[in-house]
Structures are given as C-alpha cells and as structure tokens.
C-alpha cells in the first residue's frame, strides 16, 4: 500500500514532509479496544517503537510499571522508557510489539526497527510530489 508523506509546519513558517502513517495500539492484557487513529513517524534509526505515555494510560497501562529501558537520541541525552507489549494496528496487519512508553516524546509515536521495520518492508520514493512510501507486510516463516 502506498502512502504520501504528510505535511507539518516547519520553524520558518513553511512546511516539511514527514513519513508518517496512522496507526492504533491496544492492550492485549486488558482486551481493550484500540486507540483512535494517531500519527506515528517512521524512524528506521530507532531501535524499537516508542509511544507517548498518554496513549499507554488510555489503554490501561500503568506505564511506569513496565521494564525500564534507557534510550539515547542524537542529543546524547538519555531518556527512560518503560516497555510494554501492545498490539500495533497498521494497514495490512496487526503485530505484537514490545514498545517503549515515555511522557517525554514530542509526538504520538515512533515506529522503529523492532516491531515495525522487522515486520514491514518500506520503500521510500522521493520522486513524486508529495514524496511517498510503500508499505508491505512481511510474513516470516
């Protein structure tokens, strides 16, 4: 399935393209309904998926009771995340993901290597306007 990048404000009054898709998450332990659709950034440099703690609370996670994992971004400043197993709903499939949760995320979610890029083949295409990407679910043997 093909997706156009989405436009976001840039700091100079213009716009920038982000590779973002609408996803939902659910708490398999609580058999909760999934969240509403929210925008999450494709981030192949992220080790795993990370979601905002506000989403975790909404699906019944006591997010700070999760396994602690320290992550480091490009600034080098460590951030504590709390790991929980959630269901990630993406067009084309539902995958179980061990994801980090933090209230220090400036956006709703990051889709990283573990859980997302290991389950979906992503082909970026900058030749169109807007640029876009194609997403294909991988079914491993």
């Amino acid at each position: 399935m093909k997706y156009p990048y989405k436009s976001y404000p840039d700091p100079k009054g213009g716009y920038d393209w982000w590779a973002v898709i609408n996803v939902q998450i659910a708490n398999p332990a609580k058999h909760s309904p999934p969240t509403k659709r929210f925008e999450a950034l494709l981030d192949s440099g992220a080790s795993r998926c990370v979601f905002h703690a506000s989403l975790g609370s909404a699906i019944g996670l006591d997010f700070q009771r999760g396994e602690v994992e320290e992550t480091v971004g490009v600034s080098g400043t460590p951030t504590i995340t709390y790991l929980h197993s959630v269901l990630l709903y993406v067009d084309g499939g539902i995958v179980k993901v061990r994801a980090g949760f933090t209230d220090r995320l400036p956006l709703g979610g990051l889709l990283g290597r573990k859980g997302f890029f290991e389950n979906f083949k992503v082909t970026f295409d900058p030749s169109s306007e807007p640029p876009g990407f194609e997403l294909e679910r991988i079914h491993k043997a």
Partner: protein
Amino acid sequence: MPALRNARTEALRSAPPDSWVALSDDETHVVAVGRTYEEVVAASDNAGITDPIIVKTPVVWSSFSV
C-alpha cells in the same frame, strides 16, 4: 493537493503546542484539542467526531532528528 497540504499545515501550526489535537477526516481542520490523548478523544466525541486522526503537537515545530 497543495490547498489541502496548506490547510493541514496551517491547522497544525494554529494548534496549541505540546497538546493533543484531533483532525477532521480530510485533515484540514482541528476539531478538538486536549492536554492528554484521553481529553482530546472525549472532546472529539462531544463534537460528534467519532473517527478523528489524532496528532501530538510538539512544544515547537522544528526539524526532527530522533
């Protein structure tokens, strides 16, 4: 497409920073705002929008290197 893109961009630019917003299905209007995900979902439901697209806005709109 450029008009839609601009409407979306300007809708997000006008949204409160460090908040949660619900966008209309065509992503051109903010239909609800909240300090948390649960607040924006409740506000969206109250506005009669049951299938919004939720966006977390940053403190400032800047380039991302995450």
